[in-house]
């Protein structure tokens, strides 16, 4: 039918996941770090939808729904933490977060 197979979608999804991961590695700004985490979740969502569509099974899609909920809640808490910390330390960079260390 089409030349684009589910594998393409899957690989794309995994690439998104990896880029998100790369962001986690690379970025020192916690805000961007949180965004990268969201990107990873997006990759996962894409994979899920792909699988769901391929096998004509709705459970995967519903799973995406839950993932989105969780992601949103996580972001909310994360940003609240960040703001609280920013008030104390005037910084959102991970370099400055070394109070809890040896």
């Amino acid at each position, binding site marked *: 039918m089409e030349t684009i197979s589910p594998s393409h979608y899957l690989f794309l999804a995994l690439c998104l996941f990896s880029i998100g*991961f790369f962001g*986690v*590695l*690379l*970025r*020192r700004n*916690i805000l961007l*770090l949180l965004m990268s985490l969201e990107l990873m979740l997006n990759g996962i969502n894409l994979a899920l939808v792909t699988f769901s569509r391929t096998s004509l099974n709705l459970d995967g899609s519903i799973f995406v729904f839950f993932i989105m909920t969780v992601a949103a809640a996580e972001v909310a808490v994360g940003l609240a933490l960040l703001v609280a910390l920013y008030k104390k330390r005037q910084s959102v960079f*991970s*370099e400055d*977060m*070394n*109070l*809890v*260390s*040896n």
Partner: protein
Amino acid sequence: MVQVALSLLLLPLLSAGITLLFLRKYGNIAALLSVASAGGILAFSSFLIFGKDSDQIFSWSTTWFQLSDWELSFGFLVDSPAKTLLFVVSFVGLLIHIFSLGYMADDKAKARYFGGLSIFMFSMLGITLSDNLVMIFVFWELVGFSSYLLIAHYFSTDEAANASKKAFIVNRVGDFGFLLGIIITYWTYGTVNLQELSVTANLDPSLTSTMLCLLLACGFIGKSAQFPLHVWLPDAMAGPTPVSALIHAATMVAAGIFLLIRIEFLFTVEALKLIGLAGSVMGLYAGFCALTQRDIKKVLAYSTLSQLGYMAAAFGLGLPGIALFHLMTHAFFKALMFLGSGSVIHACHHEQDIFNFGGLRKKMPVTAYTFLIGVLAISGVHFLSGYFSKDAILLGAYNLDFVIFSILYLGAILTSIYMFRLYFLTFCGETRSKSSENAVESSVFMTAPLIVLAVLAVFGGFHSLYPAQIVEYLLPDISRVAEMPHHLWMNILGLFAWVGGLLFAWKIYGSDTQSKDPLELKAPSLFQLSTSKLFFDEVYLFYVNRIQDPFFRFLEVMELLFISGLMVRGSAGVAALFALLGKSFYSGKIHHYSFWFVLGTLGFLAYAILGGGIS
């Protein structure tokens, strides 16, 4: 009989125990108790010797200790050699106890002294009565212990402290071999009981080995202070003089000879030859050392060594009876001389240097004359006790082994030289120091034993005078020697020996002597050689101070370095290193930590892709 033997053994132990526990502060009571026990011992032992079935060997045993197949019995074996020694020990022992009453009269630690004597009597009787090698070993160690205690009587002097330590350790070296010998004997013959051993050894002569004999003989070498373990005996003179008389002259050192006699049937020809040769060399060597000693007791100590060498030689020649005979006579005259010297020392307020004596004959005649008898006896003057036993040894050696004979004969000449030297320097001439000027004859407690011993030193050589039970073991060998040729020839040679010695000593020491040894002026190199005692002490000292102790310290350092340091601390250090490494990962930085997650994920995925048995 068992009860007698047991009470014989327990009596001194009891006396020692009571003294130690209750009488520490009551020296006089302790002394009396001890003497009483010595008297009791004599009584009991004569009962044992002359008892009803005295012509039979008395043996009895009961289990003492049992592990697995090995059973050790506590038992008595009173056969003829045991009876001889029993007699010597109990008789001389009593005399010395009595002598001690006088000698130690002013000593503060009297109780300790007499307690030690009692322990010694207990252990010595134990050796005498034991029926197996392990028991002998037990009492063997115990006599060593009591000897240690008594040498250390004047413990606050460094001399006594060192001498006691040395005596015990050197004895331990001998015991080391003895112990090995006993163990190997057990596994070779399957028993350590003397009677069973003799049966087995006779049945199967192939079991004997020179090695085993020599190991067992190590015990003898240590206890009888034979070459090369002789170094402790002269030092042991740091103890009170009666102790020297009892332990280091009459009985304990002789126990080595007694041990040899007990296990005579185990010996091979080679071993006997070796012992004989070593004994004779010892006889010569000790005599040579005695020539230049200044300490009255050390002269006697070396003389003891020399006489023990004679006994060993006799045993080595295959004449154990003669060895025992000499043991007995030697016990008398050597005890006599030691006690005499004790009397002198006591009179001179613990002055021991013979060059500080002189002219004591007039001041203490009893001591002097009894001492002279001793000197004559040991020099082998005819028809005194020493003559019989010593001549028998020389005669036997002449007929059996000429090498041994010639060495022994040289030794005999030396004996009479140093003995007369001792006598002349001590009792003749003018007094050479204040302490000897003020000397007076000792009390009756001291002179009475001297007189008794002097009588024995005179007549002790006539074996026919003794009750048969005592000399039973000696007779076969005595008659064997008596049948040997060249008897007359030997008499003449003997005469030459003692007269020559006498004259030689008279020439050098007889006339007026100053505090310096005349021999030192006349033959300095010989004198040097003699005083150095062939450097044995130096060699041992060198070994201990320069080799053993540094090596042990080196081992300590090595332990500290390698075991404590490298092994224990090292592993702790490695752990600490890893701990620091582990700690260093915790930088607290998020972007460092996320690398762990990437690496972990990669690792897990790599494992999924590559690992785990894809089939």
